[in-house]
C-alpha cells in the first residue's frame, strides 16, 4: 500500500470542499431568497449532474475539456491549463459533481430562518454581507457542517468522473478511490481492504470531530 493516493484523495476532498464553501454558500444564499422561476430552474440544473452515472458525466466533461474542444483549446492557449489528466481537472470535476450536496442543505436551512433575524441586523446598519456571515450562517451551523461532511465524503468516494478525466497518473490523479478500485479489479483484495480501512479510519476521525464540535454548538436544555 502506498500513501500517495490517500494523501491525494484527502487533498482533493479538502480543496473541493473549500472551493464549494466559498462558492456554494453565496449561491445557497441567493437561491434561498424568494425569486423568479429562474431560480427554481437554476437550482434544478445544479442537481442534474447527479442524475448521470459519474463515468458518463466524466465522459461529457472529457469532451468539453479535451484539447480538441473550444473550451479546452482556449484554456490551454490563454492560461496554459489542461483540465484533462491533471489534478486541476479533478478539482473542477469534483466541484461540479458535489455542488448540490453543499448548496441544497444550506439553502433549505436558510429558507427556514425567520426573516426578523436579518431585519434586526439591517436596522443596526449592517450590510447584507455582514448580516449573512455573523447572523444567518452561525444560526444554521448544524446544516452547514452536514453539508461539509457530505461534500467531503462524497468527493473522497468519487471515482467515475475522476477515472474518466484523470488517467490514473501516479501522484497526480491516481487518488485513493482509484487505487482501491484497481486493487479489487486485480483480485488484490487484501490491498483493497487495507486502503479502504485507512480511508475509513481517517474520514471517520474527521467526521466524528466535526460532529462533536457541531453538537457542542447546539442549544442545551434548561438543566
Amino acid at each position, binding site marked *: 500500500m502506498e500513501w500517495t493516493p490517500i494523501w491525494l484523495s484527502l487533498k482533493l476532498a479538502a480543496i473541493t470542499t473549500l472551493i464549494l464553501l466559498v462558492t456554494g454558500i453565496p449561491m445557497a444564499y441567493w437561491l434561498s431568497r424568494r425569486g423568479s422561476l429562474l431560480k427554481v430552474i437554476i437550482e434544478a440544473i445544479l442537481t442534474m449532474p447527479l442524475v448521470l452515472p459519474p463515468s458518463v458525466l466524466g465522459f461529457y466533461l472529457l469532451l468539453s475539456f479535451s484539447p480538441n474542444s473550444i473550451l479546452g483549446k482556449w484554456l490551454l492557449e490563454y492560461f496554459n491549463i489542461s483540465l484533462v489528466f491533471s489534478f486541476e481537472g479533478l478539482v473542477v470535476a469534483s466541484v461540479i459533481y458535489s455542488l448540490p450536496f453543499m448548496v441544497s442543505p444550506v439553502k433549505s436551512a436558510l429558507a427556514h430562518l425567520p426573516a426578523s433575524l436579518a431585519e*434586526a441586523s439591517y*436596522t*443596526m*446598519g449592517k450590510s447584507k454581507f455582514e448580516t449573512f456571515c455573523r447572523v444567518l450562517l452561525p444560526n444554521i451551523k448544524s446544516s452547514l457542517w452536514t453539508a461539509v461532511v457530505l461534500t467531503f465524503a462524497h468527493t473522497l468516494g468519487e471515482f467515475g468522473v475522476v477515472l474518466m478525466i484523470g488517467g490514473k497518473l501516479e501522484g497526480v490523479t491516481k487518488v485513493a478511490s482509484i487505487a482501491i478500485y484497481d486493487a479489487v479489479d486485480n483480485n488484490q483484495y487484501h490491498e483493497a481492504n487495507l486502503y479502504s480501512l485507512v480511508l475509513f479510519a481517517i474520514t471517520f476521525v474527521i467526521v466524528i470531530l466535526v460532529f462533536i464540535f457541531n453538537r457542542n454548538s447546539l*442549544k442545551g436544555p434548561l438543566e
Partner: protein
Amino acid sequence: MIEIAIDKKIKTYMGYNRLRVEDVFPVSSVTKVYGPSGIGKTTFLKIIAGLITPDRGIIKVAGQTWLDTQKKINLPPQERKAGFVFQDYALFPNMTALEHLRYATQDHQLVSRLLRAGKMETFAGHRPHQLSGGQQQRLAILRALAQRPKLLLMDEAFSAMDDELRETLITDLKILLKEFGTTTIIVSHHAQETLGFADRSLKID
C-alpha cells in the same frame, strides 16, 4: 424634526384595511403610539425603519428624506439605522447578551453602561434561549440603544417587565436618550406603561 406621512393598504384574509398616518415628531420627543390590536402599529414602525414599503408616503428625518414614493427615494434600513425593539425581540440565537451589544457597537464603555442599566451584568454570557422573557426584552432594548440611534422605535418594549423594573429602566433610558439626542416612538397598550416616559401621543385607527 421628523415628518411622516404614509398610506398603506394592509391585506387581510377578508379584503383590505387602510393604514394612514401623518404626524410630525419633535427632536428628542417620546411619542406613544396606541390603537387597537391588529390596526397596523407594528407595520407603521417597520415602515419607518425601512423594512416595509408603503403604497404612498414621505418620511423626512432631520432634513434628510428617507422615503418619498413620488420621487422614488427609499433608503434601505441600513442607511436609516433606526434603533428597533421588535415586538418578538428578534434576538440572535447564536449570540450571548454581550455579543449582541458588541455586534451593535465597538464602544466597550457604552456596552458596560447598558448592561448595568438593564441589570443584565450577570447574564452577559447567556444566549437568548437561556434568558427569561423579561431578560430577553431588556436585551432587545439595550441592543437597539447600543447603536446610539437618532430614532428609536419600540414595539411594546415594556410588556414583559413588572412596574418596578420598568420604572428604574426608564429612568436610565431617559438619561441615555437625552445624551444621544434620540427621538423615540413607542407603541404601547397600557396607559400606565409609558407614564413618565412619553411626552406626546398618537392614536392610530
